[in-house]
């Protein structure tokens, strides 16, 4: 199979086979990360720019390490140091970064659709590093990789995504990816945090979609994976729930709830965790909780993505 994509903007852009390809390559890169010398010369001479118009240490560091372990040169541009504050448009930023010779740009932006806009204005590869409440495709890929690592498969898994679905790009990308790979998804949240029409987000094309539950306890026993989302504390002031206390009581994952889950449960969280709110202090540290595994896998998966976008021949040359 030829992976002929310029950009990775959305999980929607990837076929099931392509997702599979990314995950399999992830195994190879994972091996490299276990070596003493965690570096291969694959992307020597390539330049990767981390353009982060919204602060994120976690994702930026992960991409930075991934690029460096592939021997690419990495430049970080954050909102503070970029011309954004001086009023430069995103179009001009895209043109400028392209002119500087970037081969790939990771775009993190508050505005949904910004990476797509960036990609339309630059010839280099663009990877969506999280845009508004739209998507975070590499997060979903590393999450799938983490599930596959534990269960050896994704198809047939029952994944519960719990929390602020409405504002979560992680939830959207995961829902799309899990559906594509044949997992069953249940979204668990108060109605105020369930966005309109989410159940048909995937159903339109795949006839599956997600089911929605307001009662965590009614479904917890059936889940193979519990995916906890970070709850933004400011949502309380937006009347989306009355108090953090009530939220934690209804939707937090604590030891009491954990008594009822399957034996080989996998607990995931995209980080950073609010201990004591969506996940209790103790649950955050149990071996079933894969948060640090997710972080480690993130580097391997992002190496996969960078390699697939930058390491292949240009599409035109493949034609013959």
């Amino acid at each position, binding site marked *: 199979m030829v992976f002929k994509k310029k950009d990775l903007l959305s999980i929607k852009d990837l076929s099931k086979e392509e997702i599979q390809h990314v995950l399999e390559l992830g195994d190879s890169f994972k091996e490299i990360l276990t070596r003493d010398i965690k570096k291969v010369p694959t992307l020597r001479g390539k330049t990767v720019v981390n353009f982060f118009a919204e602060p994120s240490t976690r994702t930026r560091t992960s991409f930075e390490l991934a690029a460096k372990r592939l021997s690419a040169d990495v430049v970080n541009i954050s909102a503070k140091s970029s011309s954004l504050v001086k009023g430069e*448009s*995103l*179009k001009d930023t895209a043109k400028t970064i392209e002119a500087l010779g970037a081969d790939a740009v990771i775009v993190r*932006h*508050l*505005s*949904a*659709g*910004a990476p*797509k*806009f960036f990609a339309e204005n630059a010839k280099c590869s663009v990877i969506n590093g999280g*845009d*508004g*409440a*739209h*998507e975070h495709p590499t997060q979903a890929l590393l999450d799938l990789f983490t599930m596959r690592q534990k269960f050896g498969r994704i198809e047939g898994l029952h994944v519960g995504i719990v929390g602020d679905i409405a504002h979560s*790009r992680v939830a*959207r990308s995961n829902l799309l990816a899990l559906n594509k790979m044949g997992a069953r998804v249940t979204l668990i949240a108060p109605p105020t945090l369930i*966005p*309109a*029409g*989410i159940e*048909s*987000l995937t159903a*339109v094309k795949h006839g599956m979609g997600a089911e929605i539950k307001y009662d965590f306890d009614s479904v917890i026993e059936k889940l193979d994976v519990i995916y906890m989302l970070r709850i933004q504390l400011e949502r309380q002031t937006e009347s989306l729930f009355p108090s953090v206390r009530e939220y934690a009581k209804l939707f937090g994952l604590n030891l009491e709830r954990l008594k009822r889950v399957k034996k080989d449960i996998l607990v995931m969280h995209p980080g950073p965790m609010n201990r004591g709110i969506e996940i209790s202090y103790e649950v955050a540290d149990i071996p079933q909780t894969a948060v640090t595994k997710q972080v480690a896998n993130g580097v391997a998966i992002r190496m996969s993505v960078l390699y697939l976008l930058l390491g292949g021949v240009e599409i035109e040359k493949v034609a013959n």
Partner: protein
Amino acid sequence: MRRLLIRGGRVIDPANKIDGVLDILVEGEKIAAVGENLEVSDCEIVDAKNKIVTPGLIDMHVHLREPGREDEETIKSGSRAAAAGGFTSVACMPNTYPVNDNSAITEMIIEKANEADLINVYPIAAITKGLTGKELTEMSELVDSGAVAFSDDGEYVKNDEVMRRALEYSKMFDVSLISHAESKKLSAGGQINEGYYSTALGLRGIPSAAEEIAIARDIILSELVDARIHFTHISTKGSLRLVKEAKERGLKVTCDVTPHHLVLTEEALANYDTNCKVNPPLRTKNDVDALSKALSEGVIDAIASDHAPHAIHEKEVEFSAAAFGMIGLETTLPLMITKIVNAGILSLPKMIEKFTISPARILKINKGTLSVGADADISIIDNMAKVKIESNKFKSRSKNSPFIGWEFNGKVHHLIVRGKTLVDSSKLIK
């Protein structure tokens, strides 16, 4: 005195219930005669055979951006766009810089329009000073200066009491308040219609309820004080239900709809096309169908473009940073003929009514008919001509239209404003 005979066209004048092949004689600035095979010597002739001859079309909701944003549009460029689109009159919204909330601005707009000497420009003045929703503007003086209606447009008057008093006070002048109905708390941060697409695209949604709650309030207030209220660019099925019910009860309620809300659904935003970012947002298929139905049932009084020119740098940005609005003066007529009349939703005479006598009555302007003695504002339309919308052909200073590249049937063939020809053989001559 110029004498002009428009010969052999299908004359449609809904105000006078005329629809037939007739001649029209223009003398000077007025219509001198309407009849079959008029025998007139010594005059210019416009051959209107196979063309539609209508009262000059009126667009009752446009933004001309002058004063303040002349880079986007001026009264002159907007007037040229209107003429090229088949319109002889437009009513322009007050959200300029400075705001049209005092007679000096209103007079300046009229003066500029006179200087341009193109079409008729009717200023709509602000309901409240600075569009801030606090203090009423000096309506009497504004009306005297030429304001035909009042509206805070995009700045919906949030304060119920202020809106009540505005409606009440406006009764002295028998003018319409024009309501852009939007509950700002419900729409806060919203980018597109709330629903499947807002979720799929990760954009904050604007629920139908934001519009419907606002419409409900204004209907109730207008009933309370027995004042005229006009709802512009209504976009949801629920809004129509409210307006229909109010009309059935005999309240002084009118409404208009834009061509884009009649033709496009929120699906047009699937690729973050900022030219489709409008307020109110493009809605669902269900809403669009309801608008079509209401149009054919007569619930909707007028069609207005909400012509909203924006500079390229305000649209060629990430979606949430993009300005709301699209231009419409030069696409409205072909779009309505092709997608509404030819699609069987509305008859040609009915459509013309919604561009002529109907908005003229709402604005209480002495336009929109072909009666003898009326101003000779006449649009001659070639409803068969094929047109392709091309950005370099826009007379507007802005190009923010999602219809670029679309092909339609129908365009203005000849345009006469107060007896003067502005468009001849589909060419703008000024």
